[in-house]
């Protein structure tokens, strides 16, 4: 167990150590301040504006900003859907893979445009290089950027006083991609490519197996397989951004559990840190740019405490395994001389600590890439990742969207707590009035609504039971996980759940679009209304939003909304399963 604790603590330390300077850097980028890359990138940035005929001085009203986000995303969705359906006739398709079905195309397009990257397909057998690189990877960048720019707009809403504008969508997008996402991706891709992650346009390789495999055919005869296919492609470049942009859509079906996506502990460390790097950094960006670092720190701590608790619970449960694993004697659960614990579904090159940390990181952030199969986790070890998604992906969450989601919860928190100090609520010196409350409610409750409605309907359909790997309580967990993954814009899979059916593709696709754009537009509306407000003076009568009490309250509200929404569901899923195993 000590081993697990030390590893997890180390990962968190590296993460936060890198995120703090990055947060300051992103803060400067948001304001268009001078950064060390400016000398190279300013001409690039201005070149893009010239080509696109963007007036970089324009300050947009929130409605226009929201319209830009909306139109941009609709076009993205349409183009990607089209690319996927007609990939057969497009270039860069050495394997000659055919177009996807309309519903898989829709699902995948919705999934990548919403930064969910739920995968109802297996990349190496379903998508061409063109679809991966031009279609999906483009969205990996811009969908991550859209989340970040909406956060920028919200931050401006808090700091501006009696103004109409909340910034310029185009410059925010260009700056985020050019100054933040591209340089970081470049570093990560080069590093992981150096460790053996493919980066090539060559067709798949056929290799001789070191040890031939004998498979039994249906008629009882046997065949000896001596050759294997190694899928290749421009993977490193895509994996870097899928981690950094909290996308999570793997180049290969098995995602980062696949040896070519994540060959060794070094790439694993790199990819794992990349999951949370930007979401953590944005907390510090927030504090810096609202000109009160304590505010950013408070939000960071609230998120970090929840993350640490989640890691502890997952790590403990996975290391301990279940009574059944121990009983059978097949698995040694002690920690002498070897990792031990519940190793089912985990890669031996990573072990318990790293798999558990990844599971926590990837579901805390709305990343969704996996390096182990969550379906095989112990009931409570699997419950925690599910819960992290159900909370609305606000424990760091997706790039930008996690933080603005958390700020929605902060608004709810000051609303309830603020009343208890005898004042109408305010956050960051801005009064919370019915309009802001309405929008904050949309931000915070879109996820529970989507998950409950989606999984509720799915559980009633007879076809759903056919998609399951496991019966009973674990079956319900699989359904819940699928809709939580979509409803949290996470995209990770519980495995064991075959999601490529027309109903599931369309319903999950719609859920993803709903939970992405409802909170996003609500956030922009809050930003616009906040910017137009005057600032209220701070006094001893003001509820402080940077102290331990507020952090505690924020955590309580997040957990309470989550628990109130999902206690019954979890009781019939993982909790029931847990008691089945232990009682």
């Amino acid at each position: 167990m000590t081993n697990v604790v030390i590893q997890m603590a180390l990962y968190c330390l590296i993460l936060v150590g890198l995120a703090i300077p990055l947060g300051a850097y992103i803060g400067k980028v948001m304001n268009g301040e001078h950064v060390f890359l400016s000398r190279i990138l300013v001409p690039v940035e201005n070149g893009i504006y010239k080509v696109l005929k963007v007036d970089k001085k324009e300050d947009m009203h929130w409605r226009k900003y929201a319209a830009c986000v909306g139109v941009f995303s609709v076009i993205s969705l349409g183009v990607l859907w089209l690319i996927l359906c007609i990939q057969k006739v497009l270039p860069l398709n050495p394997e000659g893979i055919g177009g996807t079905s309309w519903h898989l195309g829709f699902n995948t397009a919705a999934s990548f445009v919403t930064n969910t990257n739920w995968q109802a397909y297996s990349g190496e057998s379903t998508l061409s290089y063109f679809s991966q690189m031009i279609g999906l990877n483009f969205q990996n960048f811009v969908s991550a950027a859209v989340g970040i720019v909406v956060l920028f707009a919200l931050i401006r809403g808090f700091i501006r006083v009696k103004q109409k504008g909340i910034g310029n969508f185009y410059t925010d997008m260009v700056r985020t991609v050019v100054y933040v996402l591209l340089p970081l991706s470049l570093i990560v891709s080069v590093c992981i490519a150096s460790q053996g992650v493919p980066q090539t346009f060559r067709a798949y390789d056929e290799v001789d197996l070191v040890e031939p495999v004998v498979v039994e055919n249906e008629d009882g005869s046997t065949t000896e397989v001596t050759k294997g296919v190694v899928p290749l492609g421009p993977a490193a470049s895509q994996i870097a951004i899928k981690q950094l942009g909290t996308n999570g859509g793997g180049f290969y079906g098995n995602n980062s559990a696949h040896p070519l996506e994540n060959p060794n502990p070094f790439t694993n460390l790199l990819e794992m840190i990349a999951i949370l790097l930007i979401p953590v950094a944005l907390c510090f960006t927030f504090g810096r740019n609202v000109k009160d670092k304590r505010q950013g720190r408070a939000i960071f701590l609230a998120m970090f405490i929840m993350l640490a608790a989640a890691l502890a619970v997952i790590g403990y449960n996975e290391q301990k395994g279940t009574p059944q694993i121990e009983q059978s004697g097949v698995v040694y659960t002690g920690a002498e001389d070897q990792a031990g614990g519940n190793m089912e579904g985990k890669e031996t090159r990573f072990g318990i600590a790293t798999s558990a940390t990844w599971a926590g990181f990837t579901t805390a952030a709305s990343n969704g890439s996996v390096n182990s199969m969550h379906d095989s986790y112990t009931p409570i070890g699997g419950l925690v990742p599910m819960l992290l998604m159900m909370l609305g992906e606000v424990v760091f969450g997706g790039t930008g969207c996690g933080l603005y989601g958390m700020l929605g919860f902060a608004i709810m928190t000051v609303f309830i707590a603020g009343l208890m100090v005898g004042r109408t609520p305010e956050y960051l010196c801005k009064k919370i009035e019915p309009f802001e409350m309405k929008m904050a409610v949309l931000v915070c409750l879109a996820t529970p609504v989507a998950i409950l409605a989606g999984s509720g309907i799915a559980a009633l359909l007879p076809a759903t039971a056919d998609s399951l790997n496991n019966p009973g309580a674990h079956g319900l967990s699989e359904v819940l996980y699928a809709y939580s993954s979509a409803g949290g814009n996470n995209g990770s899979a519980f495995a064991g759940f075959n999601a490529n059916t027309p109903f599931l593709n369309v319903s999950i696709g719609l859920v993803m679009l709903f939970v992405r754009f409802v909170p996003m537009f609500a956030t922009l509306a809050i930003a616009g209304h906040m910017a137009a407000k005057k600032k209220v003076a701070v006094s001893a009568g003001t509820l402080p939003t940077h102290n331990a009490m507020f952090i505690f309250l924020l955590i309580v509200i997040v957990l309470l909304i989550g628990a109130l929404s999902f206690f019954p569901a979890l009781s019939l899923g993982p909790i029931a399963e847990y008691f089945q195993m232990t009682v």
Partner: protein
Amino acid sequence: MSEKKKNIFADHKIMSRAMKDSFMKLNPRMQVKNPVMFMVFISAILTLVMFGFSLAGVRDAHPGYILAISVILWFTVLFGNFAEAIAEGRGKAQADALRAGRRDVLANKIESIEHKDKIVQVKSTELKKGDLVYVKANEQIPADGDVVDGAASVDESAITGESAPVIRESGGDRSAVTGGTTVISDWLVIKVTSNAGEGFMDKMIAMVEGASRKKTPNELALQLFLVALSIIFVLVTVSLYSYSVFSSDQMGSVNPTSITNLVALLICLAPTTIGALLSAIGIAGMSRLNQANVLAMSGRAIEAAGDVDILLLDKTGTITLGNRQADAFIPVDGHTEEEVADAAQLSSLADETPEGRSIVVLAKERFDMRGRNMAELHAEFVPFTAKTRMSGINYRGSEIRKGAAEAIKAYVEEKGGVFSKACEETAARIASQGGTPLVVAKDGRVVGVIQLKDIVKQGVKEKFADLRKMGIKTIMITGDNPLTAASIAAEAGVDDFLAEATPEGKLEMIRDYQQRGHLVAMTGDGTNDAPALAQADVAVAMNTGTQAAKEAGNMVDLDSSPTKLIEIVKIGKQLLMTRGALTTFSIANDVAKYFAIIPALFMGLYPGLSALNIMGLHSADSAVLSAIIYNALIIIGLIPLALKGVKYREVPAAKMLSGNLLVYGLGGIIVPFAAIKVIDVLITVTGIVG
């Protein structure tokens, strides 16, 4: 109006009316105004219909059980109605009393002030703005208006509850009269300022009755939050049904959930406690304000009062006692202190003002000079006039005068005397220390200076310190010069002051503070206060004030007490705190309700879940019944708190928050665990549930 202080629950009239109103409020059109309770209302109807079906054989639970749930739901609705009705009760009773005191009177309408004898009698309801009416002693004033001629004492007890009559006269700041009050002596000519039905009394009746009550912004925001929570809970229960079907299918057993149980679960989870009490809290806040004899023109104003962080307080009456007192005799030009005291006392013997009397008293205390009798001395009193600005006596051929430095200087110099530099300096020094110098002269020669001092009220310093702890700044408004003002400000412990205040100065100051994000409260009475009142966030007009001031303010203080502002802030804060506390309590309750119902429902399906049945409830039926009975009873239990408001202390926000969280947050988690267990035991022991 002393009966207002009586305990509302002991008042049979209000209680019985509230009970009747609880049933009247079952009207769907009234229910729909409160979405959370409307959901309970619909659920009650639904379960009743299901009970009907169950009798016909279409059922998913035992008919008796369905009926029990339905009955409890109906009680939940009624309890919610009762909370609102009882909160309205006091106001309605007050409104009835006001209405009863009103008569339709015949008004003596006249054409002009010059022709008071040409009277046309018209009904008071037919008076229009601008009409002139003539009101004699023992007649009721027919409408709101301004006195344009005459002066009279008026009994305003109908609105203020204060039986001592007040003087109303034309011109100045005491010219406003209110329809429904009675002239006791003399006569008045009044220019009507409001049409029938729009007068102050009409507004007052509407306000105390709550007829014109609109939801305030904060109440709306809270309601939005509650509705959103309710929607989530609808989804939770519906999806739970679906999960339950799925799980029982998977386990090959019977679906343990019935629609009745799910409806009960929904109502337990929905924030019905705060939903039922929300409007009662608002009405009660209004009512508390009425009891403090303040009439708010909108609920918005009370909320703003909670947010106020700058109080503009008039010096006189709020910070200092209304009058000054003699504090010291300071001799100049070679005279002794005793000489000054003697001259000062003589000059003040006939001076009946509080200042004058305090001089006599001080002289007696210092030098044991007994107050001498004017008649024995054969002295002639010279009263204060606006022209001379001095008072004094002529006595045994001497002239003794006292007055402000400039007045005495003029007097002395006119007599050919010298107003010495020493005297001038002394006067200036006194002024700089917050005192008021009065110079005493005898036969054209200055004797000395009397130092008058403002007396700061007892306890104000502590009060202001408390307010400061809560983040409220106090600002003293005074007509005094800056030196005097600064000294009193320091003594009283106010945060800032506005000296030589003019209406424009006040307006400027309010704007300035608002610009910096503060919310400002002030009181005012004169017409020239109107612009500042209109600008302030919370503007309390004195009832004795002019019509213009009353219209500019958003509250009227019927007692015309300058310290009322502090009380108003307290009521505003208390209202918001009560809302927050009960919301927290209501949501915290859900934790226990989940632990009561969910394990009980699914123990059959997954026996392991009984580990979560930490209350050890008897069965699924008893668990659901206990939870929903608790849910109904807690509404009744919390009505007194909703009406009275939560405890209010003057402490910083962070401290207040942790205190309230402990009581209402932690309490909200623990209380239902205990209460539900007790109810469960009771209903199983009594055999209500088998």
